[in-house]
């Protein structure tokens, strides 16, 4: 089932087409990696799907509904969870409170003024932390957690919204090598078990080729290739434009 359909998405910043007519789709339960050199338009794409930016043209259709241009909090309600390149959590709150916050929001109880927040959805929050392996550290503030652990809490927060689609911007950046494999294995398990679609960007090629079901390649705002890891790896255009971009010099040296 097609979960996310991006159609001819475009965003222009001061005359530069940061994202230029990009179209692709994502199935439920699929891990789709978006790769490309710096400045290829990956973050801009993400920010449009997530609602941080409004597209100039094109459609972003999630489960049959066009969500392009809606504000982030609205898009979240429609089932899009997100983790950020630099993990964004609430540093003054405990790990479990971070997850409870997301659960409270999902239950539309943000406006409640009386009952202490700590009493809302504790069990469910604990279960989510257990799922990402953070149950033991539930009572520690996010501000003092190791970075890899913060990233796992962030994943639990994103999952608390019961997302259909998970956007992960460089999920393993800043993590130790052992941690990143564990995190990606967990992400794959979640996607395949719960039918959550995962769109992620990543610079670490072993993560991309080790975990992605499919890969799309952007360069200078345009989609230049897509397919399974093997196909993308051997695509001459990808080799030329992405890996050898600005590498005319290669010819001179070889």
């Amino acid at each position: 089932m097609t979960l996310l359909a991006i159609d001819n998405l475009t965003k222009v910043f001061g005359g530069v087409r940061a994202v230029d007519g990009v179209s692709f789709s994502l199935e439920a339960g699929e891990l789709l990696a978006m790769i490309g050199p710096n400045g290829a338009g990956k973050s801009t794409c993400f920010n449009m799907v997530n609602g941080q930016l409004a597209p100039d043209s094109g459609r972003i259709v999630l489960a049959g509904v066009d969500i392009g241009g809606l504000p982030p909090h609205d898009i979240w309600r429609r089932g899009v969870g997100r983790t950020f390149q630099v993990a964004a959590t609430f540093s003054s709150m405990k790990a479990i409170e971070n997850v409870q916050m997301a659960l409270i929001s999902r239950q539309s109880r943000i406006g409640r003024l009386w009952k202490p927040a700590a009493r809302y959805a504790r069990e469910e929050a604990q279960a989510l932390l257990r799922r990402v392996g953070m149950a033991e550290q539930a009572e520690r503030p996010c501000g003092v957690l190791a970075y890899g652990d913060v990233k796992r809490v962030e994943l639990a927060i994103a999952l608390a919204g019961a997302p259909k689609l998970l956007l992960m911007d460089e999920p393993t950046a800043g993590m130790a090598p052992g941690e990143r494999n564990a995190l990606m294995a967990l992400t794959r398990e979640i996607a395949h078990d719960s039918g959550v679609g995962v769109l992620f960007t990543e610079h670490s090629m072993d993560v991309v080729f080790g975990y992605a079901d499919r890969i799309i390649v952007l360069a200078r705002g345009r989609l230049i290739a897509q397919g399974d890891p093997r196909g993308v790896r051997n695509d001459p255009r990808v080799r030329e434009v992405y890996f050898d971009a600005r590498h005319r010099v290669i010819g001179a040296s070889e």
Partner: protein
Amino acid sequence: MNAAPLLRARHLEARYGAAQVLFGVDLDLHAGEVVALLGRNGAGKSTTMKAIMGLIEQRSGDISFCGRQISAARPHHIARLGLGYVPEDRRIFSDLTVLENLEVGRRPARLGADGRAMQAWTPERLFALFPNLAEARHRAAGRISGGEQQMLAVARTLMGNPIAILLDEPSEGVAPAIVDQMTDMILALKGAGAAILLAEQNLAFAALVAERAYVLERGEIRFEGAMRQLREDDALRRAYLEF
């Protein structure tokens, strides 16, 4: 090389908030050599350079330059000792003209590492090296092309007459013709006796100018050796630089 290195870093660590980015980086840069610091995006190349330059508050380790400890020095002291820095994102002063940008970087001429007086850089000498900039000298730096901005960032640092330069990805996002100019420029500087630490993702470009290389991956040095060795070792390249 037996002489004491010009720039020497040991056990360099750096973090941004909770995220540790460098895990004990050791590197040396000797007088007159060009050394490549290779690695993918996010490997820690830029952070290494910023940490050396004193631009990251949360850093630790021993750094010395020209025999002096600079681990706790402030950036302007480090720059005045003769260590130039060209940031990856250029950070030109876009409201200032090209000439004014050069003026910000201007420092008096100094004695080279070998004790002989170096010829001071002037805008005119730099315009000879970067002809494009000469035509744009009175234009606001924010209104020149990306490639010209990259040249300006390098030229601005040269105005400080540095002994050694930290050059962060000069080939990033610029047209091939500019990359060629960068190559010429680096070779010219090398010929003039400057030492350069060049952060790059582009092995081919680095191979044209550098004789030695470090490969950085996830904040750790994974390879250190001759450039030739790196070019010939497919497995190594594949592990850290390509797929």
